[in-house]
């Protein structure tokens, strides 16, 4: 690798032998990752590779079976509340409440994240404006298009100006136009606020377009890591799809019933 070794102050996310088992199944095995501040980092891999499990551990939703990690300099084990304050999270599923308007969804989280009352309205309007959904501010979220819901969720995650943003398959179930809108907003987010972004995706073009660094996971471990150009060189190919096949394997689909049901439910809700 050509990059300089990062110092601890440059690092936004770091895992140290992070491990999670479910019974006899080791979903994530002794994962070591270093993600620099302000970087967009893509975690790729087939279903069941351990991407979502990794994000769930880093967001403190799932305790690790072994190892540890820091997010924005805070330990997921010793200071989970500090980690939650420092990060935003957009889950694979649709987490906006369809029975509330866009404004009301954001208001709930502005209150929970302790945004001062005098700042709330401005912060919400700014976030909606940044994501290009100001006009839908007072409409019920159940009337939003898929791309609008995703942008609302990102706005919701950014209200408290977190240092780190986790996105679990943010463009799943979206049409190409909506995918581009979401990608553009993420790039703008990093440009404007210097937010560190860790995202998972199956879309190799998306990873190449968005990510400074990519790690391909297979069976709970990192099979390859580097920039898209470095990975192409390692795999001796010009195609990111071939990179994926090279490192994750051609017959790597371990999708189970639950994965398919969840993806279809999300896609259905996104319309």
């Amino acid at each position, binding site marked *: 690798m050509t990059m300089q070794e990062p110092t601890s102050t440059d690092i936004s996310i*770091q895992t140290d032998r992070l491990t999670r088992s479910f019974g006899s199944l080791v979903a994530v095995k002794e994962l070591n990752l270093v993600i620099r501040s302000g970087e967009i980092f893509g975690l790729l891999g087939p279903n069941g590779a351990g991407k979502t499990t990794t994000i769930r551990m880093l967001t403190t939703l799932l305790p690790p079976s072994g190892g540890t990690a820091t997010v924005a300099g805070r330990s997921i084990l010793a200071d989970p509340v500090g980690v939650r304050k420092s990060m935003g999270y957009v889950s694979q599923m649709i987490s906006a*409440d*369809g029975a509330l308007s866009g404004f009301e969804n954001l208001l709930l989280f502005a209150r*929970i994240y302790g945004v001062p009352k005098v700042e709330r309205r401005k912060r919400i309007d700014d976030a909606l404006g940044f994501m290009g959904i100001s006009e839908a501010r007072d409409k019920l979220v159940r009337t939003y298009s898929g791309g609008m819901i995703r942008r609302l969720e990102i706005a919701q995650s950014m209200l408290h100006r977190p240092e780190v943003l986790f996105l679990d398959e943010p463009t799943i179930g979206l049409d190409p136009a909506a995918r581009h809108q979401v990608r553009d907003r993420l790039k703008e987010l990093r440009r404007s606020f210097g937010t560190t972004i860790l995202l998972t995706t199956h879309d190799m073009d998306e990873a190449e377009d968005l990510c400074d660094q990519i790690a391909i996971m297979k069976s709970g471990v990192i099979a390859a890591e580097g920039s898209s150009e470095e990975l192409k060189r390692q795999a001796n190919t010009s195609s990111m799809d071939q990179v994926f096949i090279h490192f994750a394997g051609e017959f790597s689909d371990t999708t189970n019933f639950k994965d398919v049901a969840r993806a279809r439910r*999300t896609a259905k809700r996104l319309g």
Partner: protein
Amino acid sequence: MTPPTSKMLPAPAARPNAWADRYSPAVFLRDTTAIVSAELVKLRRDPSEIFARSIQPALWLLVFGQVFGKLHALPTGKLDYFSFLAPGILAQSVLFIAIFYGINVIWERDLGILQKLMASPAPRGALVFGKAVSAGMRAIAQGTIVYLMAFVMQVPLNWSPLALGGVLLSIVLGAALFSTFSLMVACVVKTRERFMGIGQVLTMPLFFASNAIYPISIMPGWLKVVAHINPLSYQVDLLRALMVIGGTTTFGIGTDLAILTSTLIALVLITSKLYPSIVR
């Protein structure tokens, strides 16, 4: 590949205020209020559930109450059977609204809403207590309808502000208690299908093993024991003392309030511990 990094990791020290973040009463109150406000917006926007759930208490009061009232078979003290039954039916309608609250949380988990809340710094206790208070608010709306029915059926209601305040408190306490119990069950069973089955199994024993429709004094010995550990009995007892003119209490208002409050606190503490498991 990035090499093992244990030497590079900064010391995983907790911030000095990490404990305060978790246990600050101000944060707890703020986050509870945020959850309640969002739930109230939803209730105001779609109150159909409240009206749909009014049918059952109406049937109990109109059909069961009228038939059993004519039998004069139950020792209801100075109260006629309608007056005896009305507080029991109010408590029953609160129970029925609250006991299925857990299914909403499973639904929110399946939609991804709960994951987002759990990834926020909100104390788990505030998320649970917020839901409990929201159930209380829904139950007040339901209670108002039962009150109106009782008024129309000429039940001698006690309109003194103190009594009305006590009734409101009793409704909120009962709904919060049973909805928290419901959330606890949801954390254990985790799926909507299992919850529906268990919800049905829980509701009837709680209702029939209480003093809602007949006094504890006529119960067989074993059922008396169950009725005494059933929180619904204490809610009914409190309502019976406050809601109708001439109403009396078996356990004492202080005992009723103490048991309902302490059970609610215990359930909130247990459910807060279990709550993260629902998204794992």
